[in-house]
């Protein structure tokens, strides 16, 4: 065990944890004011739900002893046997629990990314069911395929450093499917759905960027040259992704937008994720550059052409960016960067691109099919979508009984009647209350 590596993974896990609040704010700023809490709530409750699921059975399904190259068995249920000692199969220099908790944060954020597709119209109870099933039946198997010892994609030699397929394609595709199943938001295409708080979105995006260092560099599982290289290419791809989206939009629409810049940054981060531990800085520049352009095209043109309402563009950014990143890994990977990896097409190994393609396609198909089944199952139990009336009023009030900015429009403690329960009423002594006096100190 190594204190440096353990520190590295624990702090990285904390950084990745922070990404989900980052997503919450990134998305929260983009919805209309009346739905801000609902989307933040979805992200927040995923942290809670998946944390418990993972400890109880998610981790063992993903990383437990292999069953038929498809899934882990249940021997590590309830973290049974997952202790303070290292598990050298995964990481020899850190406690097994550190690896477990680091991976947990990936399971969380992946589910959280999907919420962008469901925004502004999904019922909260249905949402809870959907996420629990999705994490268990989509994320956990996929993580096993790619990263679990014995997983079939891992054995095939598919390269996915920090989750291009497992995290981004899976969430992007599932988001698209869910958006199609839920249907468009009321008024989509005829009313404007403008972001209600772009500074919040920027804050979220920069927390994502910050946390992504833990995500990508931490995936080296040890603090050395590889982690450093992953850190550096992560930053580089994000930077150029932002610039390339910015300039593309500027040319296309005449304005360099803030929302475009942060969206492009995220696109760059997504695309570099699978490649982070296999490519050098020049490849990172190319990967990010292309990501900014194609994600912009997917969001700004493809979406409207096809007419689906993927509210916050999970597919356009994570689905498209993740697919590009996974394939780009097959182009630019180099054993000069990571001797434990493989070479890509441009380093003389065209077969790697083929393997990457298999990884991509199987993830697309698996995520699509399972998401459809899960949504169908949930819809049998409870309605997926809020009523038109609830959608009009906003999800904050109708799903959560709260107002995001209760005091803001009104500017003073006004406009509300306080329904004092009998309990409160009886316990108040009116005079003390209105004079504002408290317990007297002098007697």
């Amino acid at each position, binding site marked *: 065990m190594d204190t440096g590596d353990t520190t590295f993974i624990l702090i990285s896990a904390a950084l990745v944890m922070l990404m989900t609040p980052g997503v919450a704010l990134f998305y929260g700023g983009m919805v209309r004011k009346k739905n801000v809490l609902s989307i933040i709530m979805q992200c927040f409750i995923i942290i809670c739900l998946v944390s418990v699921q993972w400890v109880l059975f998610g981790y063992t399904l993903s990383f437990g002893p292999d069953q038929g190259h498809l899934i882990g068995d249940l021997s590590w249920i309830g973290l049974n046997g997952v202790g303070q000692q290292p598990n050298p199969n995964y990481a020899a220099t850190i406690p097994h629990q550190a690896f477990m908790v680091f991976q947990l944060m990936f399971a969380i954020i992946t589910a959280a990314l999907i919420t962008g597709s469901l925004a502004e119209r999904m019922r909260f109870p249905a949402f809870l069911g959907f996420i629990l099933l999705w994490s268990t039946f989509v994320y956990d198997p996929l993580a096993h395929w790619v990263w679990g010892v014995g997983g079939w994609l891992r054995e095939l030699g598919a390269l996915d450093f920090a989750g291009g397929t497992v995290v981004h394609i899976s969430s992007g595709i599932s988001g698209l499917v869910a958006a199609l199943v839920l249907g468009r938001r009321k008024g989509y295409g005829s*009313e404007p759905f403008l972001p209600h708080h772009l500074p919040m979105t920027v804050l979220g995006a920069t927390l994502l960027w910050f946390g992504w260092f833990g995500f990508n560099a931490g995936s080296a599982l040890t603090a050395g040259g590889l982690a450093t290289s992953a850190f550096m290419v992560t930053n580089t791809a994000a930077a150029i992704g932002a610039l390339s989206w910015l300039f593309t939009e500027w040319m296309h629409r005449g304005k360099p937008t803030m929302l475009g810049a942060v969206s492009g940054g995220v696109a760059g981060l997504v695309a570099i994720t699978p490649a982070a531990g296999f490519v050098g800085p020049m490849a990172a520049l190319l990967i990010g550059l292309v990501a900014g352009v194609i994600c912009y095209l997917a969001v700004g043109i493809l979406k409207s052409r096809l007419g689906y309402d993927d509210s916050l563009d999970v597919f356009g950014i994570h689905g498209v960016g993740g697919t590009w990143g996974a394939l780009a890994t097959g182009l630019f990977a180099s054993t000069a960067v990571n001797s434990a990896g493989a070479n890509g097409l441009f380093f003389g190994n065209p077969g790697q691109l083929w393997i990457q393609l298999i990884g991509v396609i199987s993830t697309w198909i698996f995520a699509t099919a399972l998401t459809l089944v899960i949504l169908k199952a949930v819809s049998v139990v409870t309605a997926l979508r809020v009523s038109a009336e609830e959608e009009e009023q906003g999800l904050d009030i109708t799903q959560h009984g709260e107002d995001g900015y209760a005091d803001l*429009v009104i500017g003073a403690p006004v*406009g509300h009647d306080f329904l004092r329960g009998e309990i409160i009423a009886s316990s108040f002594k009116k005079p003390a209350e209105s004079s504002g006096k408290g317990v007297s100190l002098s007697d």
Partner: protein
Amino acid sequence: MTKIECIFRPGKLEDVKDALGKFGIHGMTVTQVIGCGLQKGRTEVYRGAEYSINLLPKIKLEIVVGDKDVDQVVNLIAQAARTGEIGDGKIFIYPVANATRIRTGETGEMAI
């Protein structure tokens, strides 16, 4: 001249604006207000305490029109803003003594 002041649901602004636009009316002023009346308020919950909120968000739209258009405009708005549920709102009509266009100094019906 007459001022038509309507208070209606926020979600209806686009519709009302469209209806007026088709009729050829483009000048209007919009204020975000809260209001109560027959409509039931809503309950909000904060840390286990319930609050009954009965001032609900509404849109106030003000249009000054020539007297001859009043009835038609009122009808248009009433139709566009109607859902049939309690809380649809009101239209009030006020006399206007005069109007001035700041840019040109024109007054009277020329100004609106």
